[in-house]
């Protein structure tokens, strides 16, 4: 739990004809992290690398076609499958998708055509509306002997240009209506200029009103006929939509299944394309947690007894590249996201998740101590964990963090005697922060000192794991740093008259010894780790720099410690904010009135939402910048076992 799982580097020799089933088995095992190919590729006439590349390209295109059909039938992708879907060959998938496309094509096309027709008919009505009172047959307007008449719509931006272009031609252009970016216009001119007028109108994007044959008569009659047409088209649209809904219902499972099969096949093809390929075999290397090696072999044995699994000795270039597989119990793993947001732990580094799972709620609870507020957070956290609310499923992983923070806020709520801001309902097990500000601030400084020391202990453990003995002893976050820090704390506490079990003279000696160790840390570290030269650059510069570094260490230790005072300040602020809510509530109608309770409820919600968010950010800040910076380096490679089910980050 405290350290990433021990990893083994394995090499698999897979006979060419078993590569698909073996890759499926590797994915099914869920424990194999493949390493990219080293390009030992030999092209063979059989299914070689080119074919897998072609598979990948074909499957990408097919996936896109499936998504288009799904979109047309209003089918969502749905949740990823729980079991790896079976692989499908592109040719088979293509036949299937062609059938589905064909099936969906007619109703979709009909719907689109009907929608276009509806838009067109509505546009006709809109164009005819301004001349609805005209008592003349529209057909007769087209066949006038001496006058050219064109009714139509055109972009408003082109109207002036059209007028301009006809400068030397007699014409009248009447704008009947403007709607959106289009204008309904009537262009009049001489029939002898029809050719010029037609070309001009066309180039100005004046689309003439071309009513279908069945719409005749006066504008009023035509509008009535068009309205009837609109109704018929709307019925047609409803029918098409019903047909699409039927297809949706009938094909939803099939399409989703096909989509995930194609995706799995695409990932498989891409994975195999990345393998090293010899004449008749594939060479695959990767990492597997040592504890899961047997599981991997078991899965492979299920599909083939010809695959050879060999353990490889990690090489120099593997250092720093070994993936870190974090394994934490469910209560702790919810905090893993907070750790990886800061940095991915290195393989040879302690996993800070367990200690974060302990300290994060503690720090939050100190700042947000209230039984009622904590209870609400706990309930919200548990609701997220239950995944009962679909839109919040994506943030379910934070449920544990919120629940733990809520629980710890409740614990401190009992210690502070605070319930939904009421300080007189519960008896404080410890103190009311608002009445004992100095005690709370000193307490939080003490908590900060403990947390910083814990960070240094973690740093020493990390140095021991990496066998950096010099760093372990002399580093500012190592033994020398820890002794230096506690010596200062002891002396400060002693100065204020608090009894310390260690005599002042001993503390002084410890301070000088650890301080000297820190001052010449680089020299001692090089000495212990047999690194030469012992001192980089000139001795004079080194001494000056060493002195300033000691000074900087002292300042940063003090500022790191004082940074934790904010915990006390927020604990006090939490009480003060609640007090403000009650003062406003009193103004809203006096104790016990409806107005009073409305303000109390809204005020509490505000405190939970607003202050809860600020306290959350401050907690994260203290963890990341004061605590993690003492021991956590990050920059490791995450363990990404092969999976044929598309993950969101792909």
């Amino acid at each position: 739990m405290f350290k990433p799982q021990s990893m083994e580097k394995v090499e698999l020799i897979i006979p060419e004809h078993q590569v698909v089933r073996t890759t499926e088995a590797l994915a099914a095992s869920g424990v194999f992290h493949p390493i990219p190919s080293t390009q030992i590729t030999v092209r063979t006439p059989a299914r070689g690398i080119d074919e897998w590349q072609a598979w990948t390209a074909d499957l990408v295109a097919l996936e896109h076609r499936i998504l288009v059909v799904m979109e047309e039938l209003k089918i969502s992708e749905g949740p990823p499958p729980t079991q790896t879907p079976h692989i499908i060959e592109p040719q088979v998938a293509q036949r299937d998708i062609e059938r589905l496309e064909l099936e969906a094509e007619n109703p979709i096309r009909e719907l689109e055509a009907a929608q276009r027709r509806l838009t067109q008919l509505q546009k006709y009505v809109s164009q005819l509306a301004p001349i609805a009172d005209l008592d003349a047959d529209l057909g007769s307007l087209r066949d006038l002997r001496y006058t050219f008449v064109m009714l139509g719509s055109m972009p408003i931006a082109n109207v002036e240009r059209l007028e301009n272009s006809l400068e030397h031609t007699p014409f009248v252009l009447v704008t009947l209506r403007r709607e959106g970016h289009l204008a309904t216009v009537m262009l009049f001119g001489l029939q002898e200029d029809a050719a010029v007028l037609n070309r001009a109108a066309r180039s100005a994007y004046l689309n003439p009103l071309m009513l279908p044959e069945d719409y005749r008569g006066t504008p009023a009659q035509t509008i009535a006929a068009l309205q009837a047409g609109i109704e018929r088209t709307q019925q047609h649209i409803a029918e098409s939509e019903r047909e699409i809904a039927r297809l949706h219902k009938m094909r939803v499972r099939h399409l989703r299944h096909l989509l995930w099969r194609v995706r799995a096949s695409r990932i498989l093809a891409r994975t195999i394309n990345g393998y090293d390929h010899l004449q008749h075999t594939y060479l695959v290397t990767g990492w597997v947690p040592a504890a899961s090696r047997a599981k991997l072999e078991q899965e492979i044995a299920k599909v083939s007894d010809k695959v050879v699994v060999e353990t490889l000795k990690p090489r120099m270039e593997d250092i720093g590249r070994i993936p870190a597989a974090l394994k934490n119990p469910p209560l702790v793993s919810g905090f893993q996201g907070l750790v990886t947001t800061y940095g991915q732990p290195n393989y040879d580094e302690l996993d800070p998740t367990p200690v974060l799972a302990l300290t994060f709620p503690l720090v939050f609870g100190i700042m947000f101590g209230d039984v009622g507020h904590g209870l609400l957070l706990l309930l919200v956290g548990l609701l997220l964990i239950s995944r009962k609310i679909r839109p919040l499923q994506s943030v379910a992983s934070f449920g544990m963090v919120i629940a733990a923070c809520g629980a710890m806020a409740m614990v401190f709520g009992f210690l502070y005697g605070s319930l939904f801001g009421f300080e007189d309902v519960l008896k404080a097990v410890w103190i009311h922060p608002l009445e004992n500000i100095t005690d709370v601030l000193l307490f939080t400084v003490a908590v900060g000192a403990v947390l910083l020391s814990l960070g240094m202990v973690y740093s020493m453990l990390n140095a021991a794991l990496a066998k950096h003995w010099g760093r372990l002893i002399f580093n500012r976050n190592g033994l020398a740093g820890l002794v230096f820090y506690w010596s200062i704390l002891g002396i400060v506490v002693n100065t204020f008259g608090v009894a310390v079990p260690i005599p002042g003279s001993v503390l002084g000696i410890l301070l000088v010894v650890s301080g000297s160790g820190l001052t010449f840390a680089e020299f001692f570290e090089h000495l212990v780790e047999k690194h030469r030269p012992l001192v980089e650059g000139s001795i004079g510069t080194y001494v000056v720099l060493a002195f300033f570094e000691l000074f900087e260490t002292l300042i940063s230790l003090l500022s790191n410690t004082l940074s934790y005072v904010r915990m006390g300040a927020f604990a006090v602020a939490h009480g003060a904010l609640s007090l403000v809510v009650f003062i406003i509530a009193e103004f809203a109608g006096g104790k016990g009135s409806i107005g009073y309770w409305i303000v109390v409820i809204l005020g509490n919600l505000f405190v939970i939402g607003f202050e809860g968010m600020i306290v959350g950010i401050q907690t994260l800040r203290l963890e990341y910048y004061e605590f993690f910076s003492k021991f956590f380096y990050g920059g490791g490679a995450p363990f990404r076992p092969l999976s044929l089910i598309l993950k969101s980050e792909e």
Partner: protein
Amino acid sequence: MVRSAVTAYASVNATTRALYSTLLTPEVRHALIQSPNFDVLLTQLDKTVYGPYLKINRELLTPRRTAFQLRLHLAHVYEKLIRITPEPGQQLLIQLWRLYEVNNLKAALRGIETGASWDEVLHLLSPMFHYIILTTDDIQRMLAAGSIVRAIERIRHTPYYDTLIHAVARYEAEKNLFPLEVALDLDYRRGLWQGIENLTGMDHEQALRLVGTEIDADNLLWAIRYRVYHHLSVQEIINYTLPFGYQVRDEDIRAIAEGGDIITVVKRVYPRIETLEDVPAQTREEISPQRRQLALIERALHRHITDLCYRTFIGNPFHIGIPLAYIMLLERELQDLTTVVEANASQLPIERLASIIDIEWW
């Protein structure tokens, strides 16, 4: 006012000047043109600001893919400058950037018309990541639609829809993409003009001088092409051109449309521009007079714009003109670079190349 312009454009100016220094020097341009083969050309390009974009498997670097990779630089420059430029100048830069979106849309429409696959179209597109309306996914969905009308339906959520759906009636009647493309071009330039009009003071002045001149050049060249190559009527030429510009007036367009002497019109707008009459007689004989005329005018206008861009960097630098001028220079560099890449890959002799790009500038 001046102080606020200084504050607003301080970082834009500093960033643009840093980027300006990465434009190809005449020595590099010369070396690129002289590259004996495609491999040497790529090696030369590797050492320039385009180098990081070419760090992919060499086998994949076909001329088309190379041009695509080079355009990645333009995308990053646009995005960087748009991000740091204050409003309303930012809107003008976004509108300028939208030209590539319009071109991508046109490429998609052409792809649908010719039945091209996504792979064939992909690297013809300009890579665009931010400040876009039309995503790569939209274009892919358009190509999958199978017909122009269905493809347009698939971009209903974009402002291009209204323009295209109105013009589609003409496409259906004429079975030609020309009306769709012209509608897009006109709409784009109207937006650009609106972007200039939204600016005030020095910003307006500079944008009008640079972008307005570019709009002028497009307008003038369109009018000439419509008359010389497409033989369109006066009314059509006027309707397919723009009623606004910096120096080009409506009467200039009308004069060209009505068959007036092109050189007279061009000389009236740009008295110092070099035209056919200014070129030695022996050079004049090489190509047909009309093409020669148009090519010369085109080159002269480009030189004029390039000159304007360079001159923008002299004097008060706290205005939108600085990023505009740099971007226009970079666009020109990329246009020519694409030509050089394609010419080199097809082993086109330098003499032929000289008829396509402004070799003297190179």
